């Protein structure tokens, strides 16, 4: 895609980052990575950490895969991709355990499951193996952030309605619903914390996005 004499932040390259945030979003448009999007959106904090982890992994996996793309034998390319992803995920997991222990406990098994996140394999296979390292890296950043934006959005809605608060990394829990509301009989909606509501919230996000942007509606 990128021409030889493209500058590092040419329009084309920047589009690799901005595209996945909107009309080419990995979750809402490409419907990749839904599983983890449903699982860790109960609170905002783990959602943010998960987004950062996925962004780092997908960006560097894209970069590495693209760097060695010419040497990868076609017949074992999926295995090679998996090894790259798995290595990066284990490193991220180890770093979280060392420097963000509390969050790593909350994310528990889901960090390991980044390996099976479809966005990663999807981007490696569809983009990194056919493009130069720099655009691949940007594509990874873009898709990671695109994933993160939706994750945080769903988590914000779920935590606000489900627990009446928002937890941010480094700050802790912020109560957003004033006590007086509760005195008038307002109650947190426990259903929002359960997994089915993640699916419904995500559905609503997709609906709103498609209603605002007709371009991304698939036509039969």
């Amino acid at each position: 895609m990128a021409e030889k004499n493209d500058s590092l932040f040419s329009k084309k390259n920047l589009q690799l980052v901005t595209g996945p945030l909107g009309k080419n979003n990995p979750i809402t448009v490409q419907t990749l990575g839904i599983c983890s999007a449903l699982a860790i959106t109960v609170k905002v904090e783990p959602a943010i950490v998960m987004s950062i982890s996925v962004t780092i992994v997908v960006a560097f996996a894209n970069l590495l895969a693209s760097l060695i793309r010419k040497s990868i034998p076609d017949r074992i390319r999926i295995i090679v991709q998996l090894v790259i992803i798995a290595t990066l995920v284990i490193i991220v997991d180890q770093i979280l355990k060392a420097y963000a222990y509390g969050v790593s406990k909350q994310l528990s098994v889901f960090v390991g499951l980044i390996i099976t996140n479809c966005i990663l394999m999807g981007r490696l296979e569809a983009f990194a193996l056919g493009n130069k390292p720099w655009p691949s890296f940007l594509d990874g950043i873009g898709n990671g952030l695109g994933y993160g934006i939706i994750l945080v959005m769903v988590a914000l809605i779920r935590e606000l309605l489900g627990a009446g608060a928002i937890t941010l990394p480094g700050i802790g829990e912020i109560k957003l619903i004033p006590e007086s509301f509760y005195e008038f009989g307002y109650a947190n909606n426990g259903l929002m914390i359960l997994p089915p509501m993640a699916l419904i919230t995500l559905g609503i996000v997709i609906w709103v996005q498609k209603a605002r942007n007709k371009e991304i509606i698939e036509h039969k």
Partner: protein
Amino acid sequence: MERSNTYIIVYSVVMVVFVAAVLSIASFSLQDKQQENVEIEKIQDMLMSINVIATTGDAKILFEKYIKQQLVINTKGEIVEGKKPFALDLKKEYAEKPDNRNLPLYIAQKNDSIFYIIPLRGKGLWGPIWGYVSLLSDKSTVYGATFDHKSETPGLGAEINKPFFEKQFIGKMIYDSEKKFKSVNVIKGGAPQGDVHGVDAISGGTITSVGVDAMIDTCIIGYDNYLKQQN
């Protein structure tokens, strides 16, 4: 481009060896830090059982401040010399026969009151569960309890580490009025009102609740002789 089989084999071998080396370095260099996190968490849990909230920053300082004595005892109630309670692996100890077990005991002091903190270790539905129970100086009344788990079902068994479950243990007795060991039982369907030896189990978390019940029973009974001697 089609590559030869030799190329593919050599490629995979080199890749795997390289990756293994990278991962070993990562794991090795982060090990100390990870170990420290586990220790700090242990201290936080322990202090939580005597109602002291410690952050990751001040856990070690508070541990020094409140924990006055650390003992290793055996089931006969004798003090075992030369062992560090903090380094004991409870999983291994509880795999031993009761007579061979080394049991850690922490004696804490807060506002002039003495508390006995007993570490617990048991099995839940999917993996290990653990916790700490602190007893008042009468060595029977529970002052506080904390539980945690590795992989119990969220929303069901995993609720054992929530305050609503842990708070139930406060004020319960492990001995009856005749000084007989009774433990605190986790009762499915709910403990009768005013029962000082029972708390409500978690609905939907039966196997985990049974695990907590068994854990409290098998762990605390090991301290029976020690606690009786002290009275």
